[in-house]
Each structure stands twice: as structure tokens, then as C-alpha cells.
């Protein structure tokens, strides 16, 4: 069966080669670059140094990292609070409407995210639609300054990333057996107790997956803070971008990128660990 073998090796070989060349090696190069220095001629040069990592923990950078983590955490929380009831409603909608409702959720999220961010400017502007509406209805007396603040970045990131939270939550809630909730209520659990002790643990997988799908991109996305946040809201993504494109300090930028990769790896490990422990509990 020579042809069998060659088709098998062809498909495996090609895919593995591609991922090694375009995913694994580049990561190793970035890791390597983070230990190098900059020079006048090139972007990267010897000697090897830990200076980039030391600089990363300077107070200014630490501030940027802290602010980014805080904002990404905030976005994740807002998405979770907005998304959980929404996913619940979708998953409990009449069966024949469900795919239509999901499609409606997905359509805007396939429209160029830059274009959508750009549309938000027209809404959040001092003389934009939101302020015009609020002034006209008399809810506020003076226009709110939202655009070019941290709040605008929060709105923009929430807007872009919300579907990433809703989709995994939806599939977790859809799998939830309503009988278990009824049983809990019959046994005298209050609404709140049912939610905390039945719904939350059983949809935990979806919650964690959704939070990761929001938190990680929120950390790295540089164009939304750029467009909505103005010059002052420097975040980790923008910082890395600037080190590469403006400051031309590639080793330092690489170190920041490695830092981001480490955060991602830790979260993925946590996720994988949770998954195996839940599975073991299921078996027990």
C-alpha cells in the first residue's frame, strides 16, 4: 500500500512543516530576539542581555501592563455580565428561532472590525448621536465627553468582543439539562441558590472559554485604543507595536511580546487543567 502511505505522509508532513515554519520557529525567534540588544545598523545585535526584561519591569512599563490587564479584565467582566443573560435567552429561545438569532449575532462580527470601530466614532463624539439623543431627551444638560477616553476604549472593545463571549456561553447553556434546575427548585433552592450552585458550575466551561476569548484579544488589540482612546491611552498592544514600528527597539518589543505569550500560556494551562479535573469529577 505504497500510495496509502505517501498520501498519509504528504498530508501530515505538509501541515506539520507549515506550522513549524510559520508558527513555532517565529515564536522561537521572538524569544531569541528578546535576549538581544539593538545597534545602530540593525534591528537586532549581540550581546545577549536580560536588560529588556529588566526594563519591562520599570515603573512606566509596569503601569502600561497594569492598565492593560485592568482594562482587559474590565472588558471581560462587562462582556460576561452582558453576555450571560443574552446567551441564556438565545439558548432558551424556541428551537426554530435559535439559528436565526445566532446568525444575527454573528453577522456584525464578520463585518470589518475597523469599519465598525470607525462607526463608533460618529456615535460617541461630543457632537455625536449619543450626546444629541441624550441632550434632546433632557437626560443630560451638557454633552458627555466619551470619545478619546478610557471609557470609549472599553465600549469599543466590548462591542467588538461580545460575540466571542456569547458563543461559548450559548453552547454551554444549551447543553444544560433543565431537569436539574427543576430538581434544585423542588428541593427548595431559591432562584439565586439554583443559579449559583447549579447553573454556574455546569456552565463553567463556557464561562472560562468565553472569558479567554475576550481577555486575550483585548490585551493585544492596538487599533481600537488607537482610534477611540486617543494618544493618552497607551496599552500593551500599542506599546509592542510602537517598539517595533516607531522606536525600532525590536528586542524590547520582543520581550513585551514574550510577556504577553506567557500570560496566554498560563491561562491556557489553567483552562486545560480545569478541563481535566472536571472530566475526572464527571467520571468519579
Amino acid at each position, binding site marked *: 500500500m505504497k*500510495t*496509502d502511505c505517501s*498520501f*498519509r505522509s504528504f*498530508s*501530515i508532513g*505538509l*501541515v*506539520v512543516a*507549515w*506550522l513549524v*515554519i*510559520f*508558527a513555532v520557529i517565529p*515564536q522561537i*525567534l*521572538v524569544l531569541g530576539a528578546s535576549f538581544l540588544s539593538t545597534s545602530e545598523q540593525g534591528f537586532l545585535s549581540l550581546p545577549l542581555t536580560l536588560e529588556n526584561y529588566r526594563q519591562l519591569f520599570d515603573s512606566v512599563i509596569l503601569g502600561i501592563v497594569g492598565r492593560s490587564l485592568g482594562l482587559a479584565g474590565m472588558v471581560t467582566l462587562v462582556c460576561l455580565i452582558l453576555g450571560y443573560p443574552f446567551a441564556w*435567552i*438565545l439558548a432558551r429561545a424556541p428551537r426554530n428561532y435559535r*439559528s436565526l*438569532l445566532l*446568525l444575527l449575532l*454573528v*453577522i456584525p462580527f*464578520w*463585518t*470589518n*472590525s*475597523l*469599519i*465598525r470601530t*470607525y*462607526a*463608533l466614532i*460618529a*456615535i460617541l463624539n461630543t*457632537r455625536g*448621536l449619543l450626546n*444629541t439623543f441624550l441632550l434632546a431627551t433632557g437626560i443630560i444638560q451638557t454633552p458627555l465627553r466619551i470619545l478619546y477616553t478610557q471609557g470609549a476604549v472599553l465600549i469599543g472593545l466590548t462591542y467588538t468582543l*461580545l460575540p466571542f463571549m456569547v458563543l461559548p456561553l450559548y453552547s454551554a447553556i444549551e447543553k444544560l439539562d433543565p431537569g436539574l434546575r427543576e430538581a434544585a427548585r423542588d428541593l427548595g433552592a431559591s432562584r439565586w441558590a439554583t443559579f449559583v450552585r447549579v447553573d454556574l458550575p455546569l456552565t463553567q466551561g463556557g464561562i472560562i472559554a468565553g472569558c*479567554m*476569548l475576550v481577555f*486575550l*484579544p483585548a*490585551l*493585544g*488589540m*492596538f*487599533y481600537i485604543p*488607537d*482610534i477611540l482612546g486617543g494618544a493618552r491611552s497607551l496599552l500593551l498592544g500599542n506599546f*509592542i*507595536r510602537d517598539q*517595533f*514600528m516607531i522606536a525600532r527597539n*525590536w528586542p524590547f*518589543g520582543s520581550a513585551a*511580546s514574550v510577556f*504577553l505569550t506567557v500570560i*496566554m500560556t498560563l491561562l491556557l494551562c489553567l483552562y486545560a487543567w480545569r478541563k481535566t479535573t472536571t472530566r475526572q469529577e464527571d467520571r468519579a
Partner: protein
Amino acid sequence: MKTFIKAAYAAVIYLFLYFPLVVLGAYSFNASRYSLGWKGFTTAWYAKLMNNAQLMDAAVHSLTIACCSATLATFLGTLAALALHRYRFPGRKILSGCVYVLIMSPDIIMGISLLVLYLVLAIPLGFWTLLLSHITLCLPFVTVTVLSRLQEFDPHVIEAARDLGAREFALFRHVILPMVMPSVMAGWLLCFTLSLDDVMISFFTTGPGYEILPLKIYSMVRLGVKPEVNALCVIMMGITLLAVPTAQWLVKDKKR
């Protein structure tokens, strides 16, 4: 009453998601150039767009890259799904882990690492680097789409084909491929939109000689926006709005 609250809540979320798109559409027909107020209906921006060679060039570049990278990524991604589903080989778990990590990882990490790779290999930035990057971006999404379809299969069909003497390639060509075709096409459309949408990876991996639409819009937004960009956005939105339901329909159709 409870149903009403639920419907109202869902409506508010949908409004939040769709309002910016509606606003954009409306502004593309607004005669006023600077103010946000409505000054009457016009299609002037669409006409102006057609004469804006730079923007149109960038749009053509974007569509070219999206088509090429979607096709190649679909090819590779389908092979990857097949390999993960059918074959047992050392490193299979690592390969499948790699696919999921690529989906999860922030785009900026991929963009930067590819930029460093191209620099080290001394490949000039432009069409080719952009193409390679977009294939890498899209590949895991195709793999996951096709893989989930493969896992729904009745394995007996494949066994039967084997018993009837089908070799591995014939099996792929005549049995597996026709069965996964809807999800392969859905994967292609997904790649197409991912590639059209990508800002971050393109930002790092394209050169000044090859401008694509998202980056062109990005630089325009920062320098002050021209109304023809609104018109262009509406057209691009139209393209994706056609592509996505088609993909959804393809995925749904096969389930019967």
C-alpha cells in the same frame, strides 16, 4: 411579562451590535461632508469612490489576498483536519494543541513573530509575506470547522469503502471530501472574511508597496476621514453580508 423583559433585553443587545452599522450606512448617503447632521440624500460618495484610484487599488489587493489565502488555507486546513481525525502519529496531540493555541493567541503575537521571521529570512515585505501570514492566520479556523464535521461522521461508511478496496487517496477523493464539502466551503468563506478583516497581522507583515484596504482605512481614520470611505465600508459590508449567510446556509444544509 417575563418573556417581554427577555425579548427587550435581547433587542437592546442586538441594537448595540447593529446600530453602528446602520449609522455608517446612513452617513454614506448623507450629502453633508463635515457636519454629522443630515443634509439630504446623495450617492455622490459612491461616484467619488470609483474615481479614487488608491482606495480602489487597495480594495482589489484585499480581495486578491483574501481569495488566494482562503483557497490555500482551506487546502492546508482540510488536510490538517483529515490528518488529525484519521491518522495516529507521534506529535498528533501537539499538532491539535497547536491549532487551538493559534486560534486563541492574540493576533499581535502572530504578526510580530512573522515579521521577525521574514526579517531573518530576508524576504522583502509585500504580497508574498502578506499571503503567507494570512494562510497561517486562517489555517486553524478551517481545521476546526472541518474537524467538527468529520467527527459527526458515521465511521462505518469509511470502513465500507475500505472493504470495497478504496485506497487512502481514493477514499479521500470520493468518500470523505464530498461529505465534508459544505464545511470546506464554509471554511473558505470564513477565511475570506478573516483575511478581509485582518488589521493586526497585515499591519506588521505588508510592505509599503502593497497596500490593502483595512490598513488604508486605518491610516485614513487617523488622518481624518473622507466620506467616500463610508461608501466603501458599506460596499465591503455588503460583500461580507452576502458571504456569511452563504457559509451558514452551507453548514446548516449538510445536517439534513
